[in-house]
């Protein structure tokens, strides 16, 4: 399992979702992606995208104005 980072700060939805989607395509099942965002809309949109595409949200945390969403990549084959 590898842990990857994605900086989606200052991007407004749906761009953080698109960047997450494009990054996840290049990862392996079981990998973890931590996405750092500033648009509060991601708290709904990224989990929704994960649910419909078979990935798991491990954690959502907020620090100052930043939101960090931790995703475990599912089996997308």
């Amino acid at each position, binding site marked *: 399992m590898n842990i990857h980072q994605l900086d989606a700060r*200052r991007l*407004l*939805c*749906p*761009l953080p*979702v*698109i960047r997450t*989607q*494009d990054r996840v395509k290049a990862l392996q099942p079981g990998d973890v992606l931590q996405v750092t965002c500033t*648009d*509060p*809309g991601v*708290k*709904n*949109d990224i989990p*929704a*995208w994960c*649910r*419909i*595409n078979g990935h798991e949200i491990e954690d959502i945390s907020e620090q100052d104005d930043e939101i960090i969403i931790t995703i475990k990549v599912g089996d997308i084959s």
Partner: protein
Amino acid sequence: MSTQRKAVSLISGGFDSMLATKTIMEQGIHVEGINFFTGFCVEGHTHAIRKKDKEKPKRNNALWVAEQLGIKMHIVDVIEEYKDIVINPSHGYGQNLNPCLDCKGFMVKKALQWIQENDFDFIITGEVIGQRPMSQRKDTMPVIARESGAGDLLLRPLCAKNLPETLPEREGWVDRDKLHDFSGRSRKPQMALAAEFGIEEWAQPAGGCCFLTDAAYSKKLADMWQTRGEKRYELDDIMMLKVGRHVRPRPHFKLIIGREEGENNFMQGYRKQFVSLKTVSHAGPLALIDGDNMSDEDIQLAASIVARFSQGKAADEVELELRSKEGTSTTMKVAPMLADDMPEEWYL
């Protein structure tokens, strides 16, 4: 064993694309959703800017629809490619700067590319004849099929019976008798179909799904192109047209004045790209100056306008911070401009 046929559905997040998708899913077709982000989509990001909108539920309706239907969704960034559609629409604009016919053709073309790359069989959309004045007319819908290259791979389940048979119908992948013959702007047939499917909730995007159909937005975009002397834009440009009050007191510069805290906070992130003004003696907005070759007189004028939108608008004098793109700042004092001295034509 028969082959499992697969369709991609253009999902906007609205009612029609939801019903069109469900109609095809009911016929045993594997459907996945696709949504194209052009930069002008109302759906999504603008509610993230204004503080007054922060309490509203934030959801991407395309994702929500996909989840309700239990299908996968692919959101595709087409910002760069879409520029040519906005700048040079071969079929022209609608009432504002909305290139609806070119836009739909572009999206179907991108969907065609996607099905070819992903081994899908056909494309579906939620279009209904007569529902939109430009892209959803009986004479323009074949144009979309033809110019996109999709031809008879494009199926519109909600009005298919009013159109020639498509390949999925001819091949028996879908049963034409179970498709629909909706037309016009009435939503009653859609409501009845939703009831049949047990769908009780759907998104109702107010004012359409694209900023280019908005008169005020289009006016600001046209002003930007006119000032630049050419039709071009970057994503940041079109984002900034959605934010603040835009005031052009002189041909060579305009002010983008935050209307509330959320906008001021958003605009803070652009202070390295614009010279900015902020009132310091009174609570007031952040303003970005979009223009070059500003004289001292221009700066004074800009400051007096910004002061006019602060809580010091009735004061004799308001102090402001003038900040360069590099971050150096100076302070200045001006008399706020009176409302009567601001011509209506300055407002974009």
